Structure formats: structure tokens, C-alpha cells
């Protein structure tokens, strides 16, 4: 039996698919089969349903990758969502300053951007570069605190979460910014060959991260740092720069997710998704089996599909029941506990050789 599995797994080694991937795929298949069966006449796997899932998945998926890379190196990044929001708030602030509202200009509150009829396309590009810069700076700040000063990651990023959210909230006075140029809606609403644009961006970023993690020396070093920071230092790996680069990558990914959210909602708010997104991305990571030194984006992808499957599936199944949208949270929590228990027994079976 074991041999059989090893044989099946062998060709997938290159994709760094592991035991956990098999478990996730198994759960995914069970979830899909179950809901297709019970939601027969509701079109659980219809094209429309699948594409709408794709759009919803993308922004969270990108944030989940942003979270994952930091967990991989033994850290965590609680500031991903704050970075995403700060980026687009500052982009809005930039547009607001470039095109100040004419009426009551002296006391205008920064909430509604009023784009003129004519403007240079470069303005749009610059406004999108701002979030990316914010992502880089956010990453540098986190990387500095964690890598160079040695603040525990959970505290460092909790502090920057607070700082970034504070800046966004302070600038917008807690209000939502609207009136972003119409061109930005393309990012969220356009599709290529029937695939929604955000999903495409997500897939591209997944592939890019996959290559970084599995096929570059940086990715290799990230795994080593995550596995044993002391040993990697003693192996001549420069931990500080690895940590710095990882948080910058995390910050940039967060910023891109922010742009997608902005173009979908055509607004920017300091607290968008703040209560759910960060924890949801950690949840995805834990479900995907990401832990210090280990984890791959393929698992993240499947984990997301499972969560989305549960969400859509239960929503369809419980359509007539009050509050059906909330059953997903319950099912996610329970699923996570089930996975913990399964992993516990798997771990227990594989006894390690202890030395005296």
C-alpha cells in the first residue's frame, strides 16, 4: 500500500506535492462529490457558479499567499490586509490631490475623488504604483523589525497593522473613498477567454510564488530559515536579507490584492475586510499545512477550493434556512479541527528515532 502511494506520488515530486496534498485532494473530492449530489438541481458545478467562485477566491487567495510566505520562514504577517487598504487609500489620496474637487475646495473632505473629463493615462499608472510602493515599504518595515531587530513577528506585524490602519483611518477620517476612475473596473470585471481577470492575476501570482519558493535559491533559503534559524545562520545563509525579502514579497502581494479589491468595489476603506481577511488567510494556511519551513502554493490553492466549495455548497444546500451564509464559518472551523486530529494520528504513527 505504502509503495503504491509512493509510486503514484513520484511523478508529482517535481511539483513538490506531499502527503498533505493527498489528504487535501481527498477532502476536496469528498466535498465536491457530496455537494454535487445533494445540490443536483441547483447547479453546484455550473459554469456560472464556478466563475463567480473564481472572482471571490482571487483577492483572498493572493492575501493567503502573502501570509503563507511569512509563515513559511517561521513568521506571520498580520499586516497584510492593513497594507492592502493603506495602498489604495494612498492611491486615492494621490488622485484627490492631483484633481482637487472644485466646489468648496477649501473644506473638501477627502472621500470623493472627482475625476475630470480629460486626464493623462499616466496618472492612472502612477496611482497604481503607489500601492505597490506601499507594499514594498510595509515589507521593509516588517522585515527590519523582525529580521534586523528581532521583534517577534506576531508583535512586529501587529504593531504595523495598527500603524497602517491608523494612517488609513486618519487620512480618510474613517470614511470610505469613492470615485476612482472608471478604467480601474477593468481589472475586476474584464475576463480573458472566459476567465475572470482577478482569477488570472491570482493564477499568475501563484505560479510566480511557486517558482520563487521551489525553483530559486531564495525560496530554498526561506525554507531553511523557517526550519531552523540558527542552523541557517551557521550555514552562512544571511537570515536578515532572507527575512527582509520575504516580507517585501508579502507586502507587494498584499498591495496587489488591495488593487483588486479597490477595482471590484471601486472604493477604498481603512477597515475593508479587517475583521475577517487576516484570520481567513491564516486559516487557509493552516489548512494547507503550511508551517515553519514547509508549505507549497499548490496546497494553498486546494485549501482555498475546499473552503470555497464548503461555502458555496452549504449556501445552496441551506438556501431556505435563515442565515445560511454563516454555516460556512462553522464548517470551516470544524474541518480545521478534523484536520488537526487526522494529522495528530498520522504524526503519532511515524515515530521518530530518539537519541540518548
Amino acid at each position, binding site marked *: 500500500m505504502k509503495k503504491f502511494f509512493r509510486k503514484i506520488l513520484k511523478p508529482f515530486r517535481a511539483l513538490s506535492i506531499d502527503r498533505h496534498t493527498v489528504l487535501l485532494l481527498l477532502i476536496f473530492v469528498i466535498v465536491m462529490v457530496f455537494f454535487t449530489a445533494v445540490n443536483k438541481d441547483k447547479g453546484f458545478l455550473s459554469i456560472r457558479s464556478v466563475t463567480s467562485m473564481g472572482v471571490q477566491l482571487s483577492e483572498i487567495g493572493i492575501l493567503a499567499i502573502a501570509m503563507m510566505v511569512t509563515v513559511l520562514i517561521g513568521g506571520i504577517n*498580520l499586516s497584510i490586509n492593513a497594507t492592502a487598504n493603506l495602498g489604495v487609500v494612498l492611491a486615492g489620496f494621490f488622485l484627490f490631490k492631483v484633481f482637487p474637487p472644485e466646489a468648496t475646495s477649501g473644506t473638501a473632505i477627502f472621500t470623493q475623488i472627482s475625476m475630470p473629463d480629460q486626464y493623462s493615462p499616466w496618472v492612472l499608472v502612477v496611482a497604481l504604483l503607489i500601492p505597490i510602493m506601499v507594499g514594498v515599504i510595509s515589507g521593509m518595515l516588517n522585515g527590519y*523589525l523582525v529580521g534586523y*531587530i*528581532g*521583534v*517577534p513577528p*506576531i*508583535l*512586529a506585524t*501587529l*504593531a*504595523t*497593522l*495598527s*500603524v*497602517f*490602519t*491608523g*494612517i488609513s*483611518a*486618519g487620512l*480618510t*477620517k*474613517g470614511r470610505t473613498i469613492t470615485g476612482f476612475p472608471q478604467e480601474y473596473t477593468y481589472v475586476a470585471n474584464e475576463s480573458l477567454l472566459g476567465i475572470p481577470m482577478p482569477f488570472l492575476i491570482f493564477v499568475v501570482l501563484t505560479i510566480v510564488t511557486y517558482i520563487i519558493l521551489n525553483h530559486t535559491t531564495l525560496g530554498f533559503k526561506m525554507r531553511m530559515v523557517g526550519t531552523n534559524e540558527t542552523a541557517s545562520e551557521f550555514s552562512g545563509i544571511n537570515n536578515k536579507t532572507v527575512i527582509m525579502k520575504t516580507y517585501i514579497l508579502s507586502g507587494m502581494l498584499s498591495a496587489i490584492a488591495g488593487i483588486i479589491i479597490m477595482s471590484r468595489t471601486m472604493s477604498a476603506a*481603512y477597515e475593508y475586510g*479587517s*475583521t*475577517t481577511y487576516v*484570520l481567513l488567510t*491564516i*486559516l487557509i494556511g*493552516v489548512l494547507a499545512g503550511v508551517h515553519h519551513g514547509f508549505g507549497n502554493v499548490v496546497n494553498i490553492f486546494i485549501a482555498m477550493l475546499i473552503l470555497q466549495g464548503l461555502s458555496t455548497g452549504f449556501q445552496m444546500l441551506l438556501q431556505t434556512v*435563515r*442565515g*445560511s451564509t*454563516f*454555516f*460556512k*464559518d*462553522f*464548517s*470551516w*472551523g*470544524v474541518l*480545521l*479541527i478534523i484536520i*488537526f*486530529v487526522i494529522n*495528530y494520528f498520522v504524526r503519532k504513527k511515524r515515530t521518530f528515532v530518539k537519541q540518548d
Partner: protein
Amino acid sequence: MFKRILKSNEFLILIIIIALSLVVGSINPNFFTIASLFDLIRASNVYIILAFALLPVVILGGVDISFVAIAAVSSYGTHMFLIGRGYEGGLLLYFIIGCTIGALAGLLNGLIITKFKLEVFDVSLATQTMWYGFTLFFIGATSNFDMPEGVVGYYSAFIAKVTDENLGVTGLHVSTIYVIVIGIFLWWFLKYTMIGRGIYAIGGNRDVAERTGFRINKITMIVFLIMGLLSGFAGVVQSALSRNFNPTLFIGQNLDVLASVILGGAAIKGGKGTVIGTVLGVILTQIIRRALVLTQIPAEWQKFVVGVILIVFTAIPAIRELRRKKLGRTTNLVEATEEA
């Protein structure tokens, strides 16, 4: 002894609080009114109880994020159950049921953590998601404003009343007594009971604690029992104060509470943390908010200021550690002979 107090984290926060108060007070004298103080206390009370719930977990060396969801399920669950039965009595029954639900939910965390040898954070992530989902789906998804007769007046249950030209009629809320009673109990528990000392011991060095004979699983269970119980209590108090029982109570505020506990001097790696420090940590975050308002800076900047202070507070010990490592004080023999 005196030197130790001066060097302590609590003292540092107290200085910051006093300095901040003086600055704000000099800009806006309204800050120094009794009414303003009472208002500050009332706003802090619930968060102090929540911070008390989290403190033992942090000392034990874990980070829990599920206590907010436990507060929500306990308070909202209790309320919907009682309201559905036409209950018109006071809060006592709310507290009894709410704390029981909370304690059981806390024990579930503890059970999963000890039984399957898991990280506190991971488990609490699962249970927080589960409990909010459970509350919203199985109990109800909308805020409930129906109050039993015995609960209606709770928000203005003052021990001492004052009338202030800016704040109107306000006073020292009765929940202050709970904070004091719980605070004294928790202080006594952490400092004077063997289980309390066990919490510090486990946080300081888990292996040694086990070797010394502390029963780690039992202590962990008790810590989570306390966490759940106090979370349930805080949930009921908050809901009754705001006259609104809400299924998503405190959602997204777990990290803010964690920040207060850390500001109060608790170590994220465990083994360190005090009741007094925790109270000061919460008060500091509340004062910052008030300070901004009273100095005409929009309150929205509060998070920014808290974040900056948090960076400073976490960077200082880290830098100190960095220096110590650089000095290379590892040669024990040399040190030993220096004293000889």
C-alpha cells in the same frame, strides 16, 4: 526593592499615562474632570476583563484569538435563550449561564490543545471561526435590542453619579466593581496559588516545569477555563451596557486586546505578565483615544499612535537582547571567577 519598581514595565507605562494625561489636560482642562475619569473607566472596564481573560494564556506562552468569539456565543446565546423564554429578571442569571457557556467553550480549546498537542494559536483560530459561525447560523444573525426589565437600567447603574456640562449625567459604573473584584482574584490566583505559579513556570520553561512536577495539562485546562469564563462574563457586561446583544460581538478586536496585554508588559513568549500591567495597558490605549479627541486630533489616528507605541515597546527589549548577544556573555567560568 524601590529600584525594581522603577525598572519595571508597569512603572514605565504609568509614567507614560501620567505624562500623556498632563499634556492632554494642559491643552484641554476637560480631561481632568471627574466625569471624564468615570467615562474613561467605563469605556475601559470591559476591555480590562477581556484582557484578564487573555493574560493567563499569554503567560502560559500561547496566543489565543478565540476569546472574542467565546464572548459572543456566550452572551448572545444566553440572551436569545432567556428572551425566548420571556425572562424579565436581572443580570445574575445572564452571568451564570453566560459564564458557564464561556467556561465550556474555553475548556474545549484546552482539551483540543492538550489532547492533540497543538499550538494554542492554531486551535483558537479554528474555534473562533467555528463559534462565530455557530452563533450566526444556529442562534441568530441579527442584533437583538429586546431587554428584560431587569437588564434595561444596567447601562446607567452607577455607584456614584455626576452631572457634567459636556458629558451629561454620567458616573462610576457598577462594572468597575467587577473589574476590581476579578482583578484582585486574578492577582491573588496568579501570585499566591500553586496553579498560578505553575502558569508562570510553564511559560518560563515548559520542560523544567514538567520535570519539577507541575501538571501541565491540568494547568492548561484551568487557564482556558478561566479564559472562557471571563470572556463570557465580558460579553454579557458589554452587551448589557450597550443594550444590544450582538452575534458578532467583539469581532476583529482580539488583536487589539492582545496589543493591550503586551503593552502591559506580558511577554509574547510567556512567563511574564501582571494584572496591574494589564490594567495599565488597557487604560493607556483608552487614554490615547481620548487624548486625541480632546486635543482636536481625529480619534481615527488612535490606532496609529497605539501602533507606534507598540513598535517602541516591542523593539526596546529586542534591541536589548541583541546587545546582550553581541557582548557574548556566555563564558560562565569567567563570570564566576570575576565574582570570586
